[in-house]
């Protein structure tokens, strides 16, 4: 099958995520336009990216008071951004900013003041609303407010509108489908190694929404309501009575999930179905470990795909080496390493980097994202140096998506293995020393309290 037909199959399933073409502006052209976000010729990518970021920068400058003042303090205004080379002048917001939010009614005002543009009417009940009540009120009004959490228990809150969230979902899925070409098809049976996307506002969970649309009969590892309080308890390492109870229940649940995954594989193997595992790698790792212990293996072969994301921690101080994980997936499940890819993204942006099957380098969709690596003085380092990852997200309508992360990366101008144009990150993204560990997988891991030694 040619790529155009392959993509057409995908596009038919995600029409609900794509606005009418006649309404597209520069951000939509950059995100929805290219057939493969990782194969856009550099010059064309730079042009699309510049127009999208310039559009968003103007918008946030004029419609977001917080960012407007921040830009004036930094002596930058829209007139200063006239070419692709000027993008490095765009003032960047440290991701820590989105953790520093108040509680109660002030939390609602915080979300509203961070947001760029016209909010819908939002009614919040109660004299002292909880964080979850505020989020619910926003989302009931048509917003898409999600949170993520670090090991320190401090949540990150991002006030997206549905348009930005749908762009996020589409960008992630399209990047994955493009990288898996020609392997993905809509008849794949999916297993989400994540919470049920319809029962949580946890970003790691909500990400799975689009996978329900592009795969068949999707199962979920965690099928229960998950709110900020439960996450806080899960991340508290069992401190306090409630925390200990949550950890105890989670530990019990863990074994059941592993058994469910094995039963699911057996069933689909019997029926000859194609299978896709999507989500936190440690759950699949635990499944493989159990199968290995029992001396069992499967030969899923060409019918299988693994998409991981969110970090590689399996215990408090142990990470899974990615290559070892892929070898295990091949030897126990029979899924080839080139069908086992990792995804890198974060709650703060619509930025999704997918590994290429050839070299497992993380490819940057530079048609709508301008990536940077910063030194300790927050100056751009250029290619080939290790530093802090930062990006300008040209697709983000809801808040200024010009973010400095706490992730330590090395960026190359081109992938040294595959022929795709555009920059890549070397595999093995880590945290900047001193910054708390986090990631979708870490949240899920804590939630089901997996200590593989037990």
């Amino acid at each position, binding site marked *: 099958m040619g790529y155009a037909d392959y993509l057409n199959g995908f596009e038919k399933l995600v029409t609900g995520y794509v606005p009418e073409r006649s309404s597209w502006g520069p951000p939509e052209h950059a995100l929805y336009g290219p057939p493969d976000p990782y194969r856009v010729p550099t010059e064309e990518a730079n042009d699309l990216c510049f127009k999208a970021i310039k559009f968003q920068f103007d918008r946030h400058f004029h419609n977001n008071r917080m*960012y407007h003042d921040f830009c004036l303090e930094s002596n930058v205004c829209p007139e200063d951004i006239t070419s692709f080379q000027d993008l490095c002048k765009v003032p960047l917001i440290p991701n820590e900013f989105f953790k520093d939010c108040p509680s109660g009614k002030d939390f609602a005002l915080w979300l509203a003041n961070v947001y760029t543009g016209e909010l819908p009417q939002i009614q919040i009940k109660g004299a002292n609303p909880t964080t979850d009540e505020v989020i619910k009120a926003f989302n009931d009004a048509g917003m898409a407010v999600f949170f993520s959490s670090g090991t320190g228990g401090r949540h990150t809150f991002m006030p997206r509108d549905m348009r930005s969230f749908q762009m996020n979902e589409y960008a992630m899925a399209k990047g994955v489908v493009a990288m898996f070409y020609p392997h993905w098809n809509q008849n794949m049976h999916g297993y989400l190694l994540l919470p049920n996307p319809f029962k949580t506002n946890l970003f790691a969970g909500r990400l799975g929404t689009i996978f329900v649309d592009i795969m068949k009969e999707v199962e979920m590892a965690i099928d229960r309501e998950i709110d900020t309080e439960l996450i806080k308890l899960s991340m508290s390492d069992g401190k306090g009575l409630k925390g200990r109870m949550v950890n105890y229940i989670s530990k019990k649940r863990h074994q059941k999930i592993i058994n469910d995954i094995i039963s699911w594989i057996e069933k689909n193997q019997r029926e000859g179905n194609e299978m896709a595992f999507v989500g936190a790698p440690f759950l699949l790792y635990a499944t493989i470990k159990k199968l290995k212990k029992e001396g069992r293996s499967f030969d899923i072969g060409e019918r299988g795909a693994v998409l991981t994301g969110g970090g590689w921690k399996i215990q408090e101080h142990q990470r899974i080496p990615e290559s070892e994980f892929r070898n295990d997936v091949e030897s126990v499940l029979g899924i080839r390493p080139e069908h086992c890819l990792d995804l890198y993204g974060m709650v703060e942006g619509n930025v999704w980097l997918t590994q290429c099957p050839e070299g497992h380098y993380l490819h940057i969709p530079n048609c709508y994202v301008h990536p940077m690596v910063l030194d300790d003085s927050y100056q751009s380092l250029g290619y080939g140096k290790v530093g802090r990852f930062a990006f300008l997200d040209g697709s983000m309508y809801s808040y200024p998506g010009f973010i400095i992360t706490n992730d330590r990366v090395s960026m190359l101008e081109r992938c040294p293995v595959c022929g795709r144009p555009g920059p890549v990150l070397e595999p093995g993204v880590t945290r900047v020393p001193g910054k708390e560990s986090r990631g979708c997988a870490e949240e899920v891991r804590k939630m089901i309290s997996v200590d593989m030694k037990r």
Partner: protein
Amino acid sequence: MANLWEIKANGYMPQRAYLKLMVNGGMSLSKVILLNLRELRRLRVIPSDGERYSRPSRQYEIPTFQEGMRSCRSTEKYLRPTLFCDHHDPLVIAIANELGAFKVSDREFAEAAYHFVKERMLLEERTINDVGETLVRGTGTCFHLITAFIALCRCAGIKARYKIFAMNMIRSWYDVVIQPDPFIKKWYDSLGYFVLEGEGEVLVDGEWLVANVGPEAEWQAATGTTITKLGEDSIGNWFNAVPGTMMRMESLPYGLKASLDLLHTIAPGSMERVNISMAAQKERGRRIIIEAGGLEAYDRLARARQGPRMPKLKLESMKQITFDG
């Protein structure tokens, strides 16, 4: 002597939060004294063979007051003389005029006064006195230095006030200010915070700018903090204010002098040890600045260590958000 009306209007009477802090601080101090009488007796004085504090010489020449030098004579709030802060003192007028009072813009003068006090006056633990005396000596606690800054600004017709709070401090400050003396350490540790700390605030172009004139650059280098500028706060930098203790005052209140006098009477040795430690740290800070390649280079490094700049978010109510209850 101020009359009752002046006492009330000028804010000489301590605010409720201030009284609460004094009571808590006093009780905690009494407890520390009672439980550590023997140690306190030992620490009261520096042994004859121990290192003694010697005050550094003044870092500036005192200008001569001349008749006709201008000074603000307003009786408006934040422009009039208050306790220990009489800007009609000829020395204050002479220095203010030398710094450009009435000749430069308010911002330029505030900057000049800030740099004068922060860079040329030195931190030293001692009892409270009038601002003229402080300027002659060239040293003082943060309250002396804030008072000098406020007096200079008021003299130039720029409104200025005190911002006082209880605080706890970052580790590098604790190691230098609290740790060297066991008595001070016990008192701080028993309370969990330092009873009183202050900053100045000056009204420039309709905005109150914070002025932390206490720590000199060398001191800031020794404690690993940035070289702060006018408008940059110590809170969130090397101090954290204890919630509910923030007070804005036109004047230092009654009782502050007495409490500092008492502390110096009870534990003069402890105060001297803090001064010795501060002097040693400033020397260390001087070396750190030289090693970094100068003041600007050090400041760049310290700011980079602090992390990137954050936007400021003012919470404003919005018509789209309604609260039931």
